[in-house]
């Protein structure tokens, strides 16, 4: 039987997979090997750095939405000329303009002026930049629109709305109009933008509007998640309703929903609901990043 490397033992130790004999071997290795000692310091530190944090669920939803938007926008992007050819054409165009300008000045008897400096930086064709543009700044349909992309009325209207809107407020056609052309994707993107700007109340209005107007859109899941996170501290019952709706829909966001339900139920003192949600989470998503925390919490609760 081949001897297991000490650093492998260390990794398996972090996963709680060692036998007693292996534990003893690992302890000896840590005493005598700088390599193993170093790794025994590095791994826990990295685990701390990559642990699940509050807000990770929303962060993950944003990453997914951004990646999907980037993939979609690239798939629909018009074919561009190769960079070298484009650059040559731009240089030729600039030269033609410069010559035309100088000729005009000479013909008009004026002194030649310095041509304006060309932009120093070419637009970088970077995937994340594209995605950021779509996700953080403007929805795809609004990118090409001249500023202001948001109708001024929308800002005024949204600013006047209370940060915590009532759930029962029905969607109004006028409200939808004010917000713009508003496909589900655009609403979602704009709501995310507002949230990032710290205008969470306005974002919540758009999230709710999206849920009302497009109950079967594919953005519904991340929207419920974002809305539930926003409501979680101030209106936990409404947040719970969103999490429950999200959980009942199944899918990969069910893990986030179950985690949210357990958090709220714990805060509300409803231990049975919290326990049920944690149990479901552990059973259905044993590899979820929440599972480790859920296990620790379940263990803690059992004592």
């Amino acid at each position, binding site marked *: 039987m081949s001897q297991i*490397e000490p*650093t*492998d033992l260390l*990794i*398996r130790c*972090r996963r709680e997979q060692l036998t007693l004999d292996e534990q003893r071997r690992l302890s000896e290795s840590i005493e*005598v*090997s*700088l*390599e193993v*000692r*170093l*790794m025994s*310091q*590095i*791994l*826990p*530190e*990295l*685990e*701390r*750095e*990559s*642990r699940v944090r509050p807000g*990770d669920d929303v*962060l*993950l939803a*944003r*990453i*997914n939405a*951004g*990646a*999907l938007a*980037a*993939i979609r926008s690239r798939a629909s992007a018009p074919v561009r000329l190769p960079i070298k050819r484009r650059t040559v054409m731009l240089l030729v165009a600039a030269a033609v303009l410069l010559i035309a300008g100088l000729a005009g000045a000479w013909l008009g008897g004026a002194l030649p002026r310095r041509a304006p400096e060309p932009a120093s930086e070419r637009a970088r064709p970077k*995937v*994340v930049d594209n*995605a*950021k543009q779509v996700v953080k700044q403007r929805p795809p349909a609004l990118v090409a629109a001249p500023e202001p992309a948001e109708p001024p009325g929308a800002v005024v209207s949204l600013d006047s709305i209370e940060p915590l809107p009532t759930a029962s407020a029905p969607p109004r056609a006028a409200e939808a109009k004010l917000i713009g052309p508003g496909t589900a994707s655009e609403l979602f993107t704009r709501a995310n933008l507002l949230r990032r700007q710290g205008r969470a109340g306005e974002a919540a209005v758009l999230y709710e509007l999206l849920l009302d107007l497009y109950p079967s859109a*594919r953005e519904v899941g991340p929207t419920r998640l974002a809305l539930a996170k926003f409501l979680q501290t101030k209106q936990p019952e409404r947040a719970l309703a969103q999490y429950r709706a999200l959980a009942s829909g199944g*899918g*990969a*966001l069910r893990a986030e929903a179950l985690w949210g339900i357990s958090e709220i139920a714990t805060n509300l003192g409803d231990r049975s609901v919290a326990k049920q949600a944690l149990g479901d989470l552990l059973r259905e998503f044993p*590899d*979820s*990043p929440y599972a480790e925390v859920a296990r620790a919490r379940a263990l803690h609760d059992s004592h």
Partner: protein
Amino acid sequence: MPLARGAVDGDVAALRTLLTTVTPNILRVVRRVIGGSHPDVEDVAQECAVEFVNALKRFRGESSIRHFAARVALRTAMNARRRQRAAKRNHGLAHELEADEAAGEGAAPDALVASRVGVQLARELCDALPAPQAEALALHCVLGYTMSEVASICGAPLETVRSRLRSAKAALVAHAQADPRLRDLVEEMA
């Protein structure tokens, strides 16, 4: 595998499900490679997710989809880290970057200094070593995969991985011995 095939064939629902499944892993990889409190975590994770989707065409099911995603994310995040370091170096900010990394999250108690320096050394080595060694070191020491898992993820024989790791870990030890911040740790072992 059916999900991956569906995503490659343009099934948007499959793609969304797949992304939702792997992005927690991607986020974990990114945090380990560039640092948990790095301001670009979200952007790099998004870049990794896009790269993962682009790479799906090459997925043959030889490893699990999570391992495949981890490898793509690792490479993308390491590239992002090298880009950032190069940009900071060009602007004369390398020392700030190192200070950021050493500081980690919040104030560091003395007990954590050695582990943070160790993490910093491992990350720096991953930037500096030849690509196969760097990848093996990152998968083993940074992401915490066992050697056989590293072999499976890289599609390389176990002995090859063992050899790459031997060289990489020797370099890590040499760097640690030369670093004055780890003097106490090194002297304890002597």
